[in-house]
């Protein structure tokens, strides 16, 4: 009796609405993998924002870094609810990440090379969370959709910030209330621990 499988209505209900849960689990594991590796690599990138101009962008890189960590925090519980899990081995986790590693460029002393890398990482994140939104939209899986769209909103902001720094195209950026505030992921939904 004890081993009888328990029906998970939270999964059944999204399957009935057309979500391929195994496919979704794969995308989510890749998505949180990219957030986690990005958080790690952004730490190195931020350390290398040095000198007079470096000081000017340190804080914005830090906001993006902490918010990417928050994205990991926000989506991982959902992964487990759906029956997925984080790989036991962190090497496997990194190798299945949805975005390539944001390695410190050889030319890091030229700040634009760091900014370009940050921009690429954000653009990859936009694409991958958009995939999750597509798969869960229109009432198919409101819970995953809600978390993914909040993450996506912050990724779009991050992209705009880095484009502004590279090209002067205005992004509407003003400093966060505190570092890594995550206005979309962290606010109403309280998806992360602050």
């Amino acid at each position, binding site marked *: 009796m004890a081993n009888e499988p328990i029906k998970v209505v939270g999964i059944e209900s999204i399957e009935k609405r057309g979500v391929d849960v195994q496919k979704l689990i794969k995308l989510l594991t890749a998505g949180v993998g990219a957030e986690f590796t990005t958080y790690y690599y952004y730490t190195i990138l931020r350390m290398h924002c040095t000198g007079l101009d470096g000081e000017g962008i340190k804080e914005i890189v830090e906001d993006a870094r902490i918010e990417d960590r928050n994205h990991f925090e926000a989506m991982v519980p959902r992964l487990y609810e759906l029956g997925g899990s984080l790989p036991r081995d962190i090497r496997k986790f990194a190798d299945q990440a949805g975005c390539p590693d944001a*390695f410190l460029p050889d030319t890091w002393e030229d700040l634009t090379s760091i900014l370009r890398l940050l921009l690429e990482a954000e653009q990859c994140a936009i*694409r991958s969370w958009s995939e999750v939104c597509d798969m869960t939209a229109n009432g198919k899986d409101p819970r995953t959709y809600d978390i993914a769209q909040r993450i996506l909103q912050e990724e779009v902001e991050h992209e705009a910030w880095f484009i502004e720094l590279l090209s002067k195209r205005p992004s509407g950026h003003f400093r966060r209330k505190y570092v890594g505030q995550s206005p979309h992921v962290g606010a109403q939904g309280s998806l992360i621990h602050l």
Partner: protein
Amino acid sequence: MQHWVCRQSDIPDNSMKLFNINKADVLVGRISGRLFACDNVCPHRGASLAMGELHGNNIYCYMHAYEYDAFSGKLVNIDSLKQQSNWRRQSEEWKRSDDLTLYPVLEQDGSIYVDLP
């Protein structure tokens, strides 16, 4: 099992379209008059190939710019990303991708059909 997809004229030359057939997302396209059909899921990290583009005989995935031959299903090009020095350091395991899952496709009496397992 064979499934009706659409009318011949629904897929003009050098275009592709996404169909949901029997709960499967199937990408059907035509390149230089020749039809192809494949699973819409990119074998690298699962992006929707319908969001990509056709580059010659290849389907180009918008996620990490891999290209798969639409007729053999083989991964043929990851060069677009290779230009950056960072890409060279990327782990081989991360870069690894299976080939595309292709489906037999045929045109008959003005209609297009695919054979799904």
